[in-house]
């Protein structure tokens, strides 16, 4: 893309960029602030009570090893919310370790000579702490806060997975749509933000080193030092204001139609964005219900959790996923039976309704490069039997674990691949095309199969369960707005595999926005004026 068009691209998104940056600063600022409020006293405690030192550092250390998506899923289960709350809690938990550790080591490394002097001249424990230990440990404590804040800016990009917004929103969307411009639109400001946060805390350090500015006039000193000291707070407050101005405007709309609001969610890949958009546009067009889009959430568990908790009203789920990942049931190869089982169990267990399927079956497809398939005569999955030990497979982590994924495939087809790598679903197609892996677990309707000239192999032993997509909706929402069922009814059976591949390709391959692709599609079927 030429420089000029990229500038246009950025310029068009400036209002959203401002909003996301504000959200990002709010998330980082609030979480770092809370981590300081919690972590510094914890560090002081750990430095004073020897018995607490190990357990405290151990606990905060373990928190940091929890993968971010798992952390978000756990917090969703605990708080029952998606959005800023679980994101901030996650960020606080991640920020604790450097702050607690630096506070306690900083205090413990105050030299014995100074401590003896403090005691010997008659300071109380409390005075020793506040007049000697903390001031001397301050550079180390601030260094810990600096680490926490800067890594916090990075980790905050993950907040988008749980619908908390931030610059990660652009990155997620960009990854889902394989759109590098969008990824950069999130990544570059995030990197700049990290630098700015780092600089602002460096300014605090500078202002704390009193002897550094002795050359300045006393009055000047006060002004400059106060400014430097307040810099991170000003940046944080700026973020909160930007965030408030946003949520103020949207919450007004949400308040107005408080009773007539539906939250539509999607997972973080193209097809999900398209399905979410399809449902959203139809409801917007044909009812006066206010639609809130919570797209790009980080996977099945977060979407399902949100639906169960009532944070989300509708999203598109797949029968196979509902059956195995949510209900933990055996694979059913009969599509109708599978649909009946999920519909019944969802109603009984979660009070959630399955509407009629869209039509396509987005099951897993073991996929290779078309070139290799021609060369070796591969048509069916069983054709790979002899070559498998020499092939490198790239699977999503979900596929590598699920019983209807690689473990089951190994049993049914009786072979193992030479090497298995975990790949992000948005990256694996490109990885296959670029020969970084030889086999992937593609989704049958993915537009990139055509775009990258790939070949899905025939499932000749009928192993993969059906993955028919259908809207899942909270029963309460359906009762309150029964018209939603009728509004979405035309979508039933409308999208076969090829149509879905085509729509996906419009977005993935041709870089059109899901909104445009969806409205064009709906218009062509006279579902939208």
């Amino acid at each position: 893309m030429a420089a000029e068009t990229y500038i246009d691209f950025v310029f068009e998104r400036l209002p959203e960029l401002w909003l996301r940056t504000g959200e990002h600063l709010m998330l980082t600022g609030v979480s770092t602030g809370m981590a300081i409020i919690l972590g510094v006293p914890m560090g002081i405690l750990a430095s004073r009570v020897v018995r607490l030192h190990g357990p405290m550092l151990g606990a905060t250390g373990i928190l940091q090893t929890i993968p971010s998506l798992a952390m978000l899923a756990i917090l969703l289960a605990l708080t029952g919310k998606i959005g800023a709350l679980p994101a901030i809690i996650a960020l606080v938990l991640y920020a604790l370790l450097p702050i607690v550790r630096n506070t306690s080591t900083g205090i413990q490394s105050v030299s014995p000579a100074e401590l003896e002097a403090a005691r010997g001249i008659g300071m109380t424990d409390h005075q020793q702490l506040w007049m000697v230990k903390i001031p001397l440990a301050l550079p180390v404590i601030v260094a810990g806060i600096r680490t926490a804040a800067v890594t916090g800016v990075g980790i905050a990009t993950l907040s988008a997975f749980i619908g908390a917004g931030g610059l990660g929103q652009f990155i997620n969307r960009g990854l889902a749509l394989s759109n590098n411009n969008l990824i950069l639109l999130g990544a570059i400001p995030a990197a700049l933000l990290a630098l700015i946060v780092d600089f602002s805390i460096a300014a605090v350090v500078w202002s704390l080193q009193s002897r550094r500015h002795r050359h300045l006039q006393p009055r000047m000193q006060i002004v400059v030092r106060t400014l430097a000291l307040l810099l991170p707070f000003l940046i944080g407050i700026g973020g909160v204001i930007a965030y408030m101005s946003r949520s103020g405007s949207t919450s007004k709309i949400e308040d107005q139609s408080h009773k007539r609001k539906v939250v539509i969610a999607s997972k973080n890949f193209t097809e999900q964005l398209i399905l979410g958009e399809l449902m959203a546009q139809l409801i917007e067009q044909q009812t006066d219900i206010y639609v809130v889009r919570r797209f790009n959430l980080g996977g099945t568990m977060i979407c399902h959790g949100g639906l169960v908790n009532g944070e989300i009203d509708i999203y598109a789920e797949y029968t196979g996923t509902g059956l195995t990942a949510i209900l933990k049931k055996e694979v059913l190869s009969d599509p109708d039976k599978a649909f009946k089982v999920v519909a019944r169990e969802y109603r009984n267990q979660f009070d959630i309704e399955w509407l009629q399927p869209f039509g396509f079956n987005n099951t897993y497809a073991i996929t290779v490069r078309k070139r290799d398939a021609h060369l070796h005569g591969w048509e069916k999955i069983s054709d790979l039997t002899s070559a498998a030990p020499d092939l490198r497979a790239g699977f999503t982590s979900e596929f590598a674990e699920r019983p209807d994924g690689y473990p089951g495939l190994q049993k049914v087809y009786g072979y193992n691949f030479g090497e298995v790598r975990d790949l992000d679903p948005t990256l694996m197609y490109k990885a296959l095309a670029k020969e970084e892996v030889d086999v992937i677990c593609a989704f049958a309707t993915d537009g990139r199969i055509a775009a990258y000239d790939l070949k899905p192999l025939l499932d000749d032993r009928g192993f993969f369960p059906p993955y028919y997509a259908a809207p899942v909706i909270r029963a309460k929402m359906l009762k309150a707005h029964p018209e939603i069922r009728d509004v979405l009814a035309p979508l039933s059976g409308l999208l076969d595999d090829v149509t879905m591949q085509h729509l996906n390709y419009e977005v993935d391959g041709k870089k059109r926005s899901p909104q445009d692709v969806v409205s064009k599609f709906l218009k062509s079927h006279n579902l939208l004026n």
Partner: protein
Amino acid sequence: MIQLIKVSKSFDGGLSYAVKDLSLDVAEGETVVLLGSSGCGKTTTLKMINRLIEPTSGLISVGGQDVTSQEPVLLRRKIGYVFQEIGLFPHMTIEQNIGIVPKLLGWDKNRRRLRACELLELMGLNPGVFANRYPDELSGGQQQRVGVARALSANPNYLLMDEPFGALDALTRDTLQQELLSLKERLKKTIIFVTHDIFEAITLGDRIAILHEGKLEQIGTKEIVYNHPESQFVAELFSKPAKQLAVFKEIT
């Protein structure tokens, strides 16, 4: 007056004693030097006086008052203490370092500032130059002058000095010893001074108390301990420097 009566200290529940049955009287205005090699219990003795270490048994009184009847923190503020490792606070200016005990005692800022200037002048440091400096901008000798000034800041009657000049070079040490000598003439403080250096003990002590393995070997003026040693240890202690001096004389 500082009085120790049969004071003992064991750090291991009575298996061994760092200080054993030590009795000692220090008169008002007197300087007593605790002399001994490392591990003889002299620093432990000093620290028991302001309760940095609690004695296992025995009685210690300062100014006629049993120290255990006093709040340790308040007791310490009444007794000046000069540390071997100086222990100035690196994040405070010289003025703040000197003013710290007055601050703990609740003096207002002006009074603290005046006191700091007064003491800097007393220690031969120009307040205009040094008051706003930080400890690491001073030489070792200057730092310990500030250390002494800090100990004197609240005008205590008693001064405990724990090998204060031990870390300084010989020339600086000599200068500071001379300064301390004239200081004590003027201030009339009651001082207990710990050292392992015989010459320092002879220079500064009105009386010298020789400690060995936690026990008091002998106490007396320098003439008495030198001319009339009461034990083999004391005799040997003082004969060694005499031999060293003889070597010097051979050279010159």
